[in-house]
């Protein structure tokens, strides 16, 4: 179970915070004192004051008890400071973990881009963990120190009181502890049923069109009803255990009151005074009963929720991370390759599939791109164009064959820390612009920085000038959400243009620009020294290239526009020349 995996982590977490725990204990002891005086003061006020005819003494003892209430209340401030020192680091650690893991996963498989589940993990689930943990610490601590105060008070009034109070208290607590494990299991079942139901609702909501189109409304509703009933069943089972729990509260909290009265004649013979009896009843009803009530209602629900959420957040990353990622591959990052010269890019019999069982996306692809050449790649969507760019950039390793830059495998040159931007840049369709200054954004692919004039020149060249002006210069803050897709693409393009990389790969990086803006940007890259590979969105873009590579499933054709018109039926299809060939 998750509990056994979490325990060592939890002990380490607490072990590093001994001082905090000590402080928390110190403040909590003041609460014990407040509980102690609450009952003891009442007993004394009665015995030495009101019953003895000394009203002033009685009021004085009650004043002491009231003072203890105030001091105990003020101690709460200290308790909460200690609580913050315990809870905030936990939340920090969880946030750090969620961020690191989701970044790792996204980098390993960029195709499965951001999903909103990450936001839920980051905000919702870490908050559940934070709140449940805080609730547990508060309640468990309060129960322990209140009990200590009350039991000491009972002993101080008369040890005989303990004989009556302790057995039912312990029995009730044991009963409660016995319900804890099954209760946690039911709570777990409930959370699982709830999630299965949410997943079902998710697929109904997401695929409503398909369900209706398939005429599968009735079976879908039936399946949903089954899951709804399962969740309700789990909830009812939880309610049964909650009901059992309130019986154990009866034994631990209510029964001692009755027993105290039943035993009163015997206690009186043991020398227990009327005031002491009243004090004891005060301990039971005003201190122990509420503390027990809080403990029992919190420990079951919050404790299980915390276990489930922590288990989920700290889950060992799945096999997904085993996908070769650039971050993990080269053991010893190669020296930053000091190739000022333009590379020759060679694909030698490249075959690639996502996973062993999947059909290859590319098979036996053979292309050489000469230094300084401008190549366009075209083909239907989903055919493997983006996979090809990842292979060229060294983000993926071919299953068979080789992708070579400068005669060396591309994959080995793309490691972390090697500043791959000195070698090549890849600009995907989803332009990445982050909240920060425009200048920071533009220097993203310049590991060694760049002179301001170069940044200005590149911005002007790709057609970013208007936007720079509108935003208020290079030092202006960029709000990505406030920019259009096209504007974001222009920033990404200027960023690639100013980078030192001699090889630029644009993967539909201009798809949100209008044809004229696209032409200007591509012109700027064509004039920039280096090799240019463009996955083309429009045929006009492809025609600006020296050569065109047509990907069509497992086959590929490469050549000039005219050659391909003659040779490739798909190319004719794509450029809208089907008719010419048909007749």
């Amino acid at each position, binding site marked *: 179970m998750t509990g056994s995996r979490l325990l060592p982590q939890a002990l380490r977490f607490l072990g590093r915070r001994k001082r905090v725990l000590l402080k928390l204990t110190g403040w909590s002891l003041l609460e014990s004192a407040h509980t102690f005086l609450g009952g003891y003061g009442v007993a004394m006020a009665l015995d030495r004051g009101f019953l003895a005819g000394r009203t002033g003494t009685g009021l004085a003892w009650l004043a002491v008890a009231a003072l203890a209430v105030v001091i105990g209340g003020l101690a709460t401030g200290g308790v909460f400071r200690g609580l913050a020192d315990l809870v905030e680091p936990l939340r920090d650690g969880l*946030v750090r973990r969620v961020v690191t893991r989701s970044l790792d996963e996204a980098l390993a498989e960029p195709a499965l881009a951001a999903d909103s589940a990450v936001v839920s993990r980051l905000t919702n689930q870490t908050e559940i963990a934070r709140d449940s943990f805080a609730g547990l610490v508060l309640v468990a601590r309060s129960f322990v120190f209140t009990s200590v105060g009350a039991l000491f008070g009972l002993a101080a009034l008369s040890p005989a009181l303990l004989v009556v109070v302790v057995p039912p208290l312990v029995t009730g607590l044991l009963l409660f502890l016995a319900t804890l494990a099954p209760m946690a299991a039911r709570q777990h079942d409930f959370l699982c049923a709830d999630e299965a139901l949410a997943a079902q609702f998710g697929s109904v909501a997401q695929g409503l069109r398909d369900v209706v189109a398939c005429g*599968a*409304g009735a079976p879908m509703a039936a399946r949903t009803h089954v899951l709804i009933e399962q969740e309700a069943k789990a*909830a009812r089972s939880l309610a049964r255990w909650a009901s059992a729990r309130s019986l154990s509260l009866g034994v631990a909290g209510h029964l001692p009151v009755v027993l105290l009265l039943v035993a009163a004649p015997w206690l009186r013979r043991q020398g227990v005074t009327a005031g002491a*009896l009243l004090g004891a009843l005060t301990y039971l009803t005003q201190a122990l009963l509420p503390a027990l009530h809080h403990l029992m209602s919190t420990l079951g629900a919050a404790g299980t929720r915390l276990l489930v959420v922590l288990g989920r957040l700290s889950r060992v990353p799945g096999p997904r991370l085993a996908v070769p990622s650039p971050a993990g591959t080269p053991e010893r990052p190669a020296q930053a390759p000091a190739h000022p010269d333009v590379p020759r890019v060679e694909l030698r019999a490249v075959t690639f599939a996502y996973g062993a069982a999947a059909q290859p996306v590319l098979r036996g692809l053979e292309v050489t791109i000469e230094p300084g050449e401008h190549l366009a790649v075209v083909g239907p969507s989903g055919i493997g164009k983006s996979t090809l760019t990842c292979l060229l950039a060294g*983000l993926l390793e071919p299953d068979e064959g080789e992708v070579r830059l400068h005669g060396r495998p591309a994959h080995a040159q793309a490691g972390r820390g090697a500043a791959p931007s000195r070698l090549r840049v890849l600009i995907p369709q989803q332009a990445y612009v982050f909240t920060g200054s425009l200048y920071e954004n533009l220097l993203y692919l310049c590991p060694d920085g760049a002179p301001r004039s170069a940044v200005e020149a590149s911005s002007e060249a790709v057609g970013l000038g208007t936007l720079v002006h509108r935003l208020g210069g290079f030092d202006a803050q960029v709000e990505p959400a406030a920019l259009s897709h096209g504007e974001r693409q222009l920033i990404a393009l200027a960023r690639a243009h100013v980078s030192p990389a001699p090889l630029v790969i644009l993967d539909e990086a201009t798809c949100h620009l209008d044809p004229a803006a696209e032409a200007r940007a591509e012109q700027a890259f064509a004039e920039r020294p280096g090799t240019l590979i463009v996955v083309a969105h429009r045929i006009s873009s492809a025609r600006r290239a020296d050569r065109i590579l047509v990907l069509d499933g497992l086959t590929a054709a490469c050549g000039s526009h005219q050659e391909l018109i003659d040779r490739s039926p798909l190319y004719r299809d794509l450029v809208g020349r089907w008719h010419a060939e048909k007749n």
Partner: protein
Amino acid sequence: MAPTPRPAPPRNAAQLPPLADASGVLAGTARHSASRIFALFLFSAASAAAAVALPAALGRTLDLLLEDAAGVERALVLCAVLVAAEVLFDALEALVGGATSARTTAWLRRCGADHLLSVAPHRAADRFTPGDLVTRLTGNAAEAGTAPTTAAIGLASVLVPVGGLICLALIDLWLVVVFLAGIPLLALLLRGFARGSSHSVSQYQRVQADIAGRLLEALGGARTVAAAGTAERELARVLAPLSELSAQGRRMWQVYGRASVGSGILVPLLTTMVLAVGGVRLAGGSLSVGDLLAASRYAALAAGLGAVVGQLNSLLRSRAAARRIADMLALPAVRHGGRPLPADGPGRVELRSVTVSRGGAPVLRGVDLVVPGGTTMAVVGRSGAGKSTLAAIAGRLADPDDGVVLLDGVPLTEADPSELRREVGYAFERPVLFGETVGAAIGFGQYEPTAGEIGASARAAGADTFVRLLPGGYAAPLTDAPLSGGELQRLGLARAFAHAGRLLILDDATSSLDSITELHVGRALVHDVRTGTRLLIAHRVSSAARADLVAWVEDGRVRAVGPHASLWEEPDYRAVFADTVRDTGGS
């Protein structure tokens, strides 16, 4: 006493009383579990009565014990009975309350899910995101579902503080005076503690949203980050506000701590004040020790009025949740007729002056179109011309705002819904698949085809080869199968082929296929799939060229209908295909 089990609740949302606003939804939940709610109220009231009676009984017993008076045994038995009753009724309250909430929530969810499945898909999609719908069906339904329980328990729990106050007055009027005077006095003294709470909470949430925003930015740019090798830098950038989050979090605990100082002190101080006055009265001989015990308990019970306010708060939250559910239930359900389609109809589709608007803008304007039975018609046009809307209208995934659509002479709005779905099939550009396995995903529909039919459909859709390569083949779990866009489309096609009736509508359903597969599927569609009429939304010239007829759509109108070869003479028609080199119209 136990409510009698009733037969299954009404399953059809259309037959329900109006649930179109929050009050309607809440009233519906109350009606649905009326007898349970009444029982719950009785249990809670009984528990409250026991709780109110107990301090007086305890006090009296204590007095009798201290005086060694007769009748102690009877007094003790009364105390024991009252304690047992309180514990027992509390347990029953927890049991029936939890079960009733679960039952009401399940009922709300069934209504919601059934209703969702009865509306036109685009209406739900226009108003709500899938995530929003899930929130309404899960969290909001649960919150609204607790309303009857909260109301019943809340109403009964008012009895406790009110009863406490009355009993306090019965013991001694001075005690009530002190109690009532003490509340405003203490509240005034403690007011200073609870300040600035909402500010720190909103600051905290702002920083949290900032981190989430940075993370989503970085995740959205994952390819750029991976290519640039800047993962470390991104990690630092996303986590930069974490220290501020921590600071704001600490401030929150501080504020919360100060607030709980107030609430933690108030009740014990009130009780002590009541005890002090009671003590003075005791010394004067007006009160007994037992009265004092009862008085201190009643002061604590009377101070519990704050908890009732909490119940009220939770009812307000339930009401807000009920409103969100009512919003969803207010989507108009699709009305169906019962007319059968003519047997052996060829699948002739006719659109008569069909007009459709979306978001106030016209998408189709007075479209007249006839797809002759048994033919293949391609619909072409630039993106945004209204092709997909036309596809949705033709098979009644949506209804036109004006005009009629007929299938073999029967208006779709009058047709029997289950027969309509059996006769009209759809395949989409991005199909959503359902089922445990790949085979089940192909078989998903009104009826389950045989394994042989599933295999044949998969072959026709060009999916058989890659499905066989999956571990487990057709039994491969759907969630584990890594599917490319093209593979997903082929499974969607196979699903449509396996259930083919007299009309098959392919909405851009071959856009991610390579040209060889596309050709193969195009041929299979004509030769192997048992269907009457085929209507396909196409981007490729080759698809249009293979169709019997092409409907050329422009700006929401049919510009021309005819064979591809004759339309090709028009330069404007040729320009439709020269727009992009990709098949899809951009993202």
